């Protein structure tokens, strides 16, 4: 069997319509020819008798003319006799010419021959009359009368026979008409049923996959891209399905791409946020530093002048105090964005502790323990990293102890790192606090810094220092805090060969 699945609907429809038309056409041709045959049969039937009927009518008239002529000698009737004779003879000749050798057909020929013989006798009667042969014409006249009767009876017989066979063939013809009519009715009904059922079938064939496709499209429209479109083989619907399928695949792909992009953008934003946070951290530190230095230049100048006055007055002790204070202010004024050698940081711590010692007397002791590696003190580090730790050691460590304590600054080094220890023997620090300080920097750290006490501080918190160092060196182990046997240590692990300063600054400013 042929496979119609892959055939286009257009082809299907064309073939279907043309086949239907052909069926109807052939049916019409059938009906047409049936009718033609009926008409032909009927025509033949009547034609046969028509000629005979024409002759039959004239036979009656010619006999009257003969009688009239024989009794009146009228030339009019003679003329009409010859007219009739010619007409009848022509008819008879035609009958003989068209003879068909059947039991019925031969009778027409017989009749025609009889008529011709009769006409001869009639003419002889007329001739005898004209020749005044009374005996002759009466004899011929009697003969024509008899023959005329015989012939007319014969024709009547033929016609009645014809009528009988006609009614027989009429029965056959009407049977055929009935058959043709029934056939046509059945055919018309059949074609109507067939065509309508086909139209139904076609419309279902077209609408069903489309409805299905619409359902798929609905699912896709609510975001379900995992629809499995059953493929339809061939045809326009097949094309539509394939197009829909590839559309779904493309949409799926685009959406995936967009999602990927969004994810990338999100991570980028996160990074930016981190940068921003770092910047904030610095700004915060700067702000806090500035807040604590209300017009630091003025204070610095004032203190400096104070120191000069003390030196002129010969008060060496006051002069030293004020010089140390001025150093701290100056160091603070240089801003956090700059980088300094480790030695300057350590000097700053010395100045700060000197101030503390003058202020609190014997309760604060200071020890410095430096290694012999002098180069170690030359490495570049971010500013203001040691002083806040020392400050913290005093405020949270030693100041809480009644007898005071010692703050020790120790520097050690190896090939890669310089280790700076800020130690105190104060009240100590809990492990929770250590974990909190060493944990990831976040909003909480900022809050903690803001909430811290302000009275004795330069304003920069421990966590700010830790975060700055971590961001600067990009490593987490750069600061460690330990508290063992009443000794609290903050250990800085500073890489020796680190040249990141410039990059770091530019990244922060961006």
């Amino acid at each position, binding site marked *: 069997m042929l496979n119609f699945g892959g055939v286009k609907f257009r082809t299907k429809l064309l073939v279907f319509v043309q086949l239907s038309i052909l069926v109807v056409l052939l049916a019409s041709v*059938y009906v047409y020819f049936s009718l033609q045959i009926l008409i032909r049969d009927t025509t033949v039937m009547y034609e046969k008798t028509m000629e005979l009927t024409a002759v039959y009518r004239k036979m009656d008239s010619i006999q009257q003319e003969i009688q009239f002529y024989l009794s009146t000698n009228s030339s009019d009737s003679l003329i009409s006799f010859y007219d009739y004779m010619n007409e009848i003879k022509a008819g008879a000749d035609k009958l003989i010419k068209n003879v068909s050798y059947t039991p019925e057909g031969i009778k027409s020929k017989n009749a025609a021959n*009889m008529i011709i013989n009769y006409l001869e006798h009639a003419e002889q009667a007329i001739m005898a009359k004209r020749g005044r042969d009374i005996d002759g014409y009466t004899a011929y006249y009697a003969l024509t009368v008899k023959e005329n009767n015989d012939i007319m009876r014969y024709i009547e017989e033929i016609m009645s026979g014809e009528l009988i066979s006609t009614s027989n063939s009429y029965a056959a013809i009407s049977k055929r008409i009935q058959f043709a009519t029934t056939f046509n009715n059945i055919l018309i009904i059949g074609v109507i049923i067939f065509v309508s059922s086909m139209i139904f079938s076609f419309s279902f064939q077209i609408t069903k996959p489309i409805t299905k496709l619409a359902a798929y499209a609905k699912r896709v429209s609510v975001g379900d891209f995992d629809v499995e479109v059953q493929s339809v083989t061939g045809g326009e619907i097949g094309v539509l399905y394939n197009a829909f399928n590839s559309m779904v695949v493309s949409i799926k792909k685009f959406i995936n791409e967009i999602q990927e992009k969004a994810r990338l953008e999100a991570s980028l934003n996160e990074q930016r946020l981190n940068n921003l946070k770092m910047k904030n951290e610095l700004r915060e530190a700067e702000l806090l530093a500035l807040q604590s230095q209300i017009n630091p230049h003025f204070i610095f100048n004032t203190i400096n002048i104070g120191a000069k006055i003390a030196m002129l007055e010969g008060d060496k002790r006051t002069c030293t105090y004020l010089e140390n204070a001025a150093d701290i202010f100056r160091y603070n004024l240089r801003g956090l964005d700059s980088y300094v050698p480790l030695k300057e940081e350590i000097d700053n711590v010395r100045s700060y502790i000197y101030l503390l010692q003058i202020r609190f007397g014997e309760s604060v002791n200071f020890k410095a323990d430096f290694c012999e590696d002098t180069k170690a003190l030359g490495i570049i580090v971010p500013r203001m990293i040691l002083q806040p730790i020392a400050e913290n050691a005093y405020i949270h460590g030693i100041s809480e102890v009644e007898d005071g304590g010692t703050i020790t600054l120790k520097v050690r080094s190896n090939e890669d790192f310089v280790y700076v220890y800020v130690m105190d023997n104060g009240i100590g620090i809990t492990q929770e606090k250590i974990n909190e300080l060493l944990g990831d920097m976040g909003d909480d750290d900022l809050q903690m810094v803001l909430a811290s006490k302000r009275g004795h501080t330069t304003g920069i918190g421990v966590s700010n220092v830790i975060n700055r160092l971590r961001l600067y060196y990009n490593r987490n182990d750069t600061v460690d805090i330990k508290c063992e046997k009443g000794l609290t240590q903050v250990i800085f692990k500073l890489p020796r060969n680190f040249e990141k300063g410039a990059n770091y600054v530019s990244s922060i400013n961006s």
Partner: protein
Amino acid sequence: MKYTYSALLLALVLLIAMLVNLFASFYNGDDKLTPQGEPRYHFILITQDNNDPFWTMYKNGATKAGETKNVFVEFVDIKYKDAALTINAVEMAILSNVDGIALQPFDVKESTEILQKVRDANITAITFENDVFYIPEISTVGSNSYEVGFASGEMAAAASGGKADIAVLVNDPGAKDSKQYNSIKYQGLLEAISKYPEMTVSQIYTLDTRMFEVDKLTNTILNENPDIDLIICSDSENTPGVAQVVIDSGKVGNVKIIGYGAMPQTMNYIKDGVVYGTIAADSYSIGYNTVIQLADIFDGKQISEFYNTDIYAITSRNLEEYREIFKTEEK
């Protein structure tokens, strides 16, 4: 879908077949109207239109011969064997300019006259199933009357065991000299029974076929001559009539019947034992040879004046065989 197309294709094939059929009938119809070749001659055979199988067989034979000789054979039926009807039919045939006429003579005088008329019109004539009237220069085809009589006699002897009072029924020949008619058949009969001294022909009855008087005549025979125990019929249409009267008068077995012709009723009576047997002419052969002889005359062949055909003696012994023959030949 494929079923749909199959249905359409089926409808198409069906329609095409119907159309072809229609065209075939269309052209066949045409064939009927065109004469299938001009026949050489046109013969008219004067026949009868009744239920005697003689005529059916006769026409079959004549038609077959017409086809063989390429001659158109026309049958002009008359109601019964009658002089006036025959003469009129022959006159019409003469007027129709036919080439040949065959007829069964009805008597000597009028038959001779009408045959003379036929000859005057330059038409060839022949008679059939006639050896009773000698008509000069007219050939005849049919069974030999002497043989028919002889066969009847022999059958009568067989039926009666050689001892019978016989009544013979003959048709009225319609002419004065019935002697000639009777004599030949009768001679045959007498010749056949002459060997049996105890068989005698008591009386010969003549019967006018047109008068339907066979009932009356048979009753008369049976009443007037109670001695008669065998009736010989010489007419096919009368035989069943005689048999019916014998049945009605309760004389089946007492009065034996020898019939003539092969009418279906006669055959049934033979089967029932009412009629002992019948003598039948080979009518197919008669019809066939009538046309052959006529055609031979036209073809310039010399033909004999008498063409004798066979006769059949049918009794209950060979009844089925003859029924078969008549049936097959009827086709």
